[in-house]
Every structure is written in structure tokens, then in C-alpha cells.
């Protein structure tokens, strides 16, 4: 078992760590103070670049580079938007940070805003997160009272406001441009890129959008140095990660481990292995949008590049584990129902395709499948992929293609016999 320093989760077990006194007594806000009083904006960006911190919301884009894209001489104000619309099924890490270490996030926000010369940040939190919103709101109020937010922070002439914006329930608002539309008071419709938010984002101004987990890493990078941080991970992937593990494991929960930890180790050592010592059947490694892996494929490093090479992705690091009792037809039905439900409806391949896929999978599940259904499903999915405004289309297609490719026999059997008896037989 790899020994992993606790960084993002170091305060999770500390009583009242969400209170500012406790956070400060443990060295909190020293990084933000250091940045504002001793460092220049460029220097901060350089440090984050060197740390190899990558966006931890799902896309994995290098954070320092993203900050560097903000035009230096823009006459318009620049905004920082924090994406706390955690909605990728299988993922629950940001909820922990918001509830158990909100000041680490606020400190990260201060540093990010200073680096890109922004004076106003918006955090977009999903509407279902009533308790996290309440706790985070309390933390923001404390930070204002202490003078860590507002005018003249730490006695400098730097000012910053942090506004909490609560969403209203729509998975697509986790997509960064849909989130911006939603923040502007519209339906959450993804925008065509370019222009990228760094040039034309919120209120048509340059905007940086970062995930909660990403920003919570930033104070630690400043505190202990980019080199220390980059060494925690593996090549081009600095730091640790919060892996959300759920499904058929003995100990579902959130585990902080280095980027690049093996999936097998996470499931069998940290999450306690498969419940009732049943046999593992499949794993979704990075939230429901990532392609599924078969049991014999889990000897793999959990980093952006290794998973991409295996035809899937790290995404939000939401690991969902399925044992031998899982019917893959039903699992695909659950996934496709979700995508059909959440498509924003802007592009026809996505809107029509996800609905069509759902109908066919539903039919197979009900025992009325036809022999040509599987090829049709793959065909429809491939016609969505790459033909849409946002990545949702690809996300909707990848489960369909990977489930059928990897478990074709089970799907064919289901179509032929109209029932699930393969799973039942395996259990006898």
C-alpha cells in the first residue's frame, strides 16, 4: 500500500476545521498572505505551472497554463469562477471540501484571483447541496470578517469579492460554458468554443473557471513549493487526488492517494475489496461518462495518460465498482436514462441520439430486443461522437460503445432469451 501524504484531506478529521480559527491555527491563510505581500502575479502563475497541477474537475487541463491565457492588458474586468456544480455520477469529492475544509478553497480562490488580477469571483454550487452551501456561506462570512476577503486584504491594496451562486438542478451546468450561461441567468446551454472563456467568458469578460478540488490544492503548492507538489504525483500530473469510490466495495468512501495509484490497489486495499467477497465484474474509473473497464483491466495507473491509453479517462476520479451480480444491460439502461434526461437539447445528434439509445436499451431490457439492436446502438453512438457543441455528446456515447464492446455476449444473450439469466447462472 503506498504511503500517501494527506494534503487535500488533512483537515477532514480535525474537529471544526471549517471554522476559521481552527484553519488558521493549523497554518491556514499563510500562503495567501505570502502571495499578496511577497509575490507578483507572474511568479504565482509560474509556480503553479511548475507544480504540474491539472484541472481536477474532469478535463485535466494544466492549471497554470489556463491562468496564463488571461490577457494581461484587458480593459475589461476579469473573473474567476469556481465550478462546484458537482454532478458527475460517482463523484462526491467537492462536497467534502466544501463541508470539511472550506477555507482551503477560499484561500485557493484568493491566490488564483490575485494571479490573474481579478477582483471578483463567483462560486457556482449545485442547488442540491443545501448543507455544503450553508457551511461554505458561513466560511465566506468569517473570511470577510477577518479581512481575508473584501477591501485591502492583509493590509495590501488588493480587494476581492467572492459571491456564492446557487444552481437549480441541471447536470449540464457542470460544463464550463453552460455554467457561465446559467450564471448569467439563462438556461444552461453550452457555448461553441472558441472563443474560449479566457478571452470571452462571464459577461463577455476574460474568465478563469476552475474546479473546487483544483483550487484547494493551490495553497499547498505555495506553502510547500511546486517541486514538492509535482513529485507527489507522476509525470505531468502533480499532486494527489481524491478518489470517490462507490458501488460493490466493502468500504465505499473518499480516498486521497497519489495520482497514478493503481486502480486495483484502490479497490482491494483502500476500499476493502468486493462486498461479501464476490467476484469483480467491471469498474467505471472516472464517473459515469468514462468508458467501462473489465475486471482484468484494473491493473492500471490512475492518471490522465494511462487511462486515456486504455481507452477511458480519469475524469472526476469517481470509481464505481460492479460485482458479478450486476446485469450489464440494466447498468447501461441506468446510464443511458441519465444521459437522455440531461441532454440540454441544443444539438440534434445529442438530443435525438440519447433518446433513441434509451428507447433501444429499454426494449432490450424488457426482453423485446432485436438482433440488429446492438449494431444500431453503436452506430447511433458513433454518430453522436464528435458531432456536438460540447463534450456531453461524447460522454453519452462512450458508455454505450464500451459496455457493448466489452460485454457483447451478455447483451446478445439477453436479446436472444429476453432475460438476465446469465447473471443468475454465474451466481449459482
Amino acid at each position, binding site marked *: 500500500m503506498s504511503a500517501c501524504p494527506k494534503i487535500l484531506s488533512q483537515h477532514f478529521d480535525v474537529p471544526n476545521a471549517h471554522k476559521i480559527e481552527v484553519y488558521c491555527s493549523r497554518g491556514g491563510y499563510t500562503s495567501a498572505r505570502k502571495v499578496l505581500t511577497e509575490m507578483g502575479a507572474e511568479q504565482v502563475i509560474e509556480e503553479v505551472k511548475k507544480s504540474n497541477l491539472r484541472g481536477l474537475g474532469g478535463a485535466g487541463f494544466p492549471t497554470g497554463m489556463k491562468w496564463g491565457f488571461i490577457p494581461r492588458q484587458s480593459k475589461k474586468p476579469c473573473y474567476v469562477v469556481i465550478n462546484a456544480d458537482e454532478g458527475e455520477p460517482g463523484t462526491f469529492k467537492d462536497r467534502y471540501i466544501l463541508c470539511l475544509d472550506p477555507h482551503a478553497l477560499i484561500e485557493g480562490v484568493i491566490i488564483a484571483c490575485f494571479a490573474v488580477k481579478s477582483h471578483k469571483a463567483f462560486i457556482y454550487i449545485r442547488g442540491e447541496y443545501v448543507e455544503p452551501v450553508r457551511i461554505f456561506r458561513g466560511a465566506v462570512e468569517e473570511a470577510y470578517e477577518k479581512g481575508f476577503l473584501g477591501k485591502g486584504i492583509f493590509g495590501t491594496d488588493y480587494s476581492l469579492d467572492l459571491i456564492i451562486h446557487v444552481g*437549480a438542478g441541471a447536470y449540464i451546468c457542470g460544463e464550463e460554458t453552460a455554467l457561465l450561461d446559467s450564471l448569467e441567468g439563462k438556461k444552461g446551454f453550452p457555448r461553441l468554443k472558441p472563443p474560449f472563456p479566457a478571452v470571452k467568458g462571464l*459577461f463577455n469578460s476574460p474568465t478563469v473557471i476552475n474546479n473546487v478540488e483544483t483550487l484547494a490544492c493551490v495553497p499547498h503548492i505555495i506553502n510547500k513549493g511546486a517541486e514538492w507538489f509535482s513529485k507527489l504525483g507522476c509525470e505531468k500530473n502533480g499532486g494527489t487526488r481524491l478518489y470517490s469510490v462507490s458501488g460493490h466495495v466493502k468500504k465505499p468512501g473518499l480516498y486521497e492517494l497519489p495520482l497514478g495509484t493503481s486502480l486495483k490497489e484502490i479497490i482491494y486495499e483502500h476500499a476493502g475489496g468486493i462486498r461479501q467477497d464476490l467476484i469483480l465484474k467491471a469498474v467505471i474509473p472516472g464517473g459515469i461518462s468514462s468508458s467501462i473497464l473489465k475486471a482484468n483491466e484494473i491493473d492500471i495507473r490512475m492518471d490522465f495518460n494511462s487511462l486515456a491509453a486504455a481507452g477511458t479517462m480519469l475524469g472526476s476520479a469517481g470509481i464505481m465498482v460492479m460485482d458479478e451480480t450486476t446485469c450489464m444491460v440494466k447498468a447501461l439502461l441506468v446510464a443511458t436514462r441519465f444521459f437522455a434526461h440531461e441532454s440540454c437539447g441544443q444539438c440534434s445528434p445529442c438530443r435525438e441520439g440519447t433518446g433513441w439509445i434509451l428507447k433501444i436499451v429499454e426494449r432490450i431490457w424488457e426482453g423485446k430486443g432485436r438482433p440488429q439492436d446492438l449494431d444500431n446502438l453503436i452506430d447511433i453512438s458513433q454518430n453522436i461522437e464528435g458531432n456536438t457543441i460540447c463534450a456531453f455528446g461524447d460522454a453519452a456515447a462512450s458508455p454505450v460503445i464500451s459496455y457493448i464492446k466489452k460485454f457483447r455476449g451478455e447483451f446478445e444473450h439477453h436479446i436472444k432469451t429476453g432475460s438476465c439469466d446469465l447473471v443468475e447462472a454465474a451466481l449459482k
Partner: protein
Amino acid sequence: MIKNSDFTYQYKLELEQIMSQYETKRAALLPVLNLAQEKYGSLSPEIEKAAAEYLDLPLMQVREVVSFYTLYHTKLKGKYHFQVCRNMSCHLLGCEEIIEYLKTRLSIDVGEDSEDGRFSLSTVECLGACEIAPMMQLNDRYIGPLTKESMDEILSKILSEQKI
């Protein structure tokens, strides 16, 4: 029944505070609707109109936003709103059974409200708490892992008007 002016009149200070945070009036739409729903329990046509007038928006733009987001409802929900997650982790650990059980215990179907206004039952997509699957949101609270026994307990507390 509230009149459309009541909302903006009664919550003037809170609304002004919301407005002051945004660069455009329109950007305040979600927070304004969130506030209205919190105060009145649902977004009636009168509220939609009040929001539109307050923010200088065509009524249509308010309507399309109300219908786009799943947390907005135009009719009052029951006093106890059971929202059971039906996404993957909850499915793997048996949310279907939980939903069926709730249907019988509450005597309503998914998407329905009980006639006495006490219960509503909905299914929702991942609530970001898969580690406690199968789980649900009961009003503001996340509860899980759910079993028939734990639901019996919750229901008996509700029925005897105790705190959950």
C-alpha cells in the same frame, strides 16, 4: 394567494442585496427564483411575473429558465419531499427496491403528491453522495444508506411528528 407585487415588496432588502452582486440584472434571475421558491414553496405564475418585472425581463425568459432546471417546481410539493437517487451507485445497491417500498408506504407513485399534501415522491439523478448509496434527499437532508428498516424508522418519526 400572493399577488405579484407582494414578493418584491416583502423581500425588498434581500432582493436588493442579491442584485448588488451581479453585473447585469438578468444574472440575478436564479438567485431571485431560489429566494422566491424558498419563501413560497413553489414558483406560481404570479411569482414568475413578479420576477420578470423586477428584473426587466420578458416573461418568456423567466418561464424557460423555470422549466429548464429540475429544482424549480410550479406546484407546491408535499411537506415531506422524498427524492430518491436512481443513478448508478444507488442502482447497484438497490435503489429500485427502496423506491418500490416507498411507493407502497406512501401510497403514491413516483412523480405524485399525496392528497393530504403531506408527501411527494420523486426520483433524481446522482446527488453527489454515492458513498452512502442507496440514498435520498428528504427535504434538505441527505439520508443513506437506506434500508427498509431505516425508512420505517424515518416514516414512524414523521407520522408521530418527531424531528427526523
